[in-house]
């Protein structure tokens, strides 16, 4: 129980920190802080989505960038068609992601472990190359968005702060949803299927249905990240689907501590902040970043969240 309380407190702390950030930015006179923080929130949503299946379902998707890309392209494609509403963009992104996740998930879930990693990568690469050759939308050059999505028919999101708070609200909502899912009956079956699928079958579950459902939910969540990131960037290209992005999402989740939804949010925050901050220090920031990653792994078995926990190992 006390663990739960601390988890809740940590979440409260982190999210209220995010809520206060724009005021800090105003005080410092650095409006760019809000810009970068919006990007962090976008990636946090995607990392959260990934952690749901990776941490709780044991499904290491190395293709989650595809869903981010699907969300981003739904903004680009609908906007060009004259549909600018954020709700419509989200719905389209989710619909596309659900479809893609259903088809690729059904095939991928035949495999496990590394094979699953590689087959999800394969599908994401297919999506990537599909959009690369989609000349109508600039191929790999991508498309510049003329404007951000509209809210209630008005260009409210053009204001960086509004976009920030909308993204934050979505993140918090999805976080709560994800927490509820992992604690539900469904979540228990999902975790059980990760632990030992044969045992789950032997007590009467078909893990496949639960895993596929979780996979689809996660894909849909990641597409929401794509919609928000497209708005933040103002530009959509297949680069959103690059396997690098999938890899970075995995790194964020592992960095934050697997199977710890808040960890995913923290992981995204830390990774992107480190990137920003080290970039200011030196041109060779990658060297430092790599060093920090290695040190964290060697020092803690549970990502960053493990660093703060009391050691209970010999």
């Amino acid at each position: 129980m006390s663990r739960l309380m601390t988890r809740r407190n940590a979440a409260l702390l982190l999210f209220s920190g995010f809520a206060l950030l724009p005021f800090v930015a105003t005080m410092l006179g650095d409006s760019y802080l809000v810009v970068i923080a919006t990007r962090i929130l976008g990636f946090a949503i995607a990392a959260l989505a990934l952690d749901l299946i990776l941490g709780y379902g044991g499904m290491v998707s190395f293709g989650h960038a595809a869903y981010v890309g699907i969300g981003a392209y739904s903004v680009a494609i609908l906007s060009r068609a004259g549909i600018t509403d954020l709700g419509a963009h989200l719905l389209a992104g989710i619909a596309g992601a659900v479809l893609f996740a259903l088809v690729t998930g059904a095939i991928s879930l035949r495999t496990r472990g590394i094979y699953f990693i590689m087959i999800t990568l394969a599908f994401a690469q297919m999506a990537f190359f599909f959009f690369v050759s989609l000349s109508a939308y600039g191929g790999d050059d991508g498309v510049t968005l003329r404007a951000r999505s509209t809210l209630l028919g008005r260009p409210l999101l053009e204001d960086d702060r509004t976009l920030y708070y909308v993204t934050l609200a979505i993140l918090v909502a999805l976080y709560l949803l994800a927490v509820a899912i992992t604690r539900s009956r469904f979540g228990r079956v999902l975790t059980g299927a990760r632990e030992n699928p044969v045992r789950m079958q032997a007590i009467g579950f078909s893990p496949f249905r639960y895993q596929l459902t979780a996979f689809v939910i996660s894909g849909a969540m990641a597409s929401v990240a794509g919609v928000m990131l497209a708005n933040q960037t103002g530009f959509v290209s297949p680069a959103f689907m690059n396997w690098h992005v999938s890899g970075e999402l995995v790194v964020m989740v592992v960095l934050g501590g697997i199977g710890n939804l808040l960890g995913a949010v923290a992981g995204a925050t830390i990774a992107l902040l480190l990137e920003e901050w080290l970039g200011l220090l030196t041109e060779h920031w990658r060297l430092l970043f790599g060093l920090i990653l290695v040190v964290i792994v060697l020092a803690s078995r549970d990502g960053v969240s493990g660093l703060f926990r009391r050691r209970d190992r010999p």
Partner: protein
Amino acid sequence: QDDDTLTIGLLLTLSGPSAVLGEMARDGFQLAAEEIGDIGGMTTRIIVVDDELKPDVATNKARELVQRNGADIVVGPIFSNIMGAIAKPVVDSGAILISPNAGPSVFAGAECHRNIFATSYQNDQMHEVMGAYAQAQGFDNVFLLAPNYQAGKDALAGFRHSYEGGVAGEIFTQLGQLDYSAELAQIAAMQPDAVFAFMPGGMGVNLVRQYRQAGLETIPFLSAFTVDESTLPAQQDAAVSFLGGSNWAPDLDTPENKAFVEAYEAKFNQVPAVYAMQAYDAARLIDAAVREAGGVADRDALIAALEQAPFTSVRGDFSFGPNHFPIQDFYLTEVVKREDGKFATSIVEKIFEDYQDSYVGDCQMD
């Protein structure tokens, strides 16, 4: 922002396999900046940023430059797909964007903008040079080769724009392909009059060396962005006598160019490529225009000054068209081994004089 400092952001690709291009541009720009001292007579602050060749990273870096650092002018990027990502945030803030290399067609045409300039070329032009050359040679059976991405498609389209002869085959290879045995076998089987290839970076190194190793050097090798000073240190002898199209070569005979190449080679111990030259010119363009406009506060005056291109380009003849893209000469170049053992491109003949891109008509600048 302080009125008498000039803040220039260099937004270039400085990491990953293509970093060499960005580094050359950075070095070229900084060389000019050192020679000039205070650019435009103002206290100058130059901020160098890596776009990582990732559009989403680039957008944010661009915003950081204009929002946080208050950049008046952003010089960049190297790659066309990054241009699309950074243009909006830069011009929305009122800053000027000067491309030292990328020249995508949209920005020369439909989406041209009064705040956007290019000191380079419009992408298609380099390929059009080779097309015109092939046409002039009377080739009627040319084999076309480019990686399968937007720039590759544009390249072959550009070549065909000025080449009307027959095409022996057209292959789009994979981006980042390592081994070209299959394509080379096809070429060997077809024995075309010539090969035209657009294979930037490491791909070009692989292709050129394997082309030579496969014993195909008897078939003329025409190219753009495939054999230049950024790849020659790796291609070496394999590339000698291979042809390219360019708006410049290190041995272009103008006094400014002589001085530039000499200074660059002395400082960085390598032969500069166009990227260095174009960035060098960008710095000198900025210097001259800011002096002319008497500062950067009045953006309209600054833009008007830039449009006049009030500097002497190392290329000699240089002016801006109404779309802010250069009107300049284009040459056929050939790879040579210089007496000092280094490899460089060298001008063979002038193909186009005062050549303007074909998108300028689409440009409606307000």
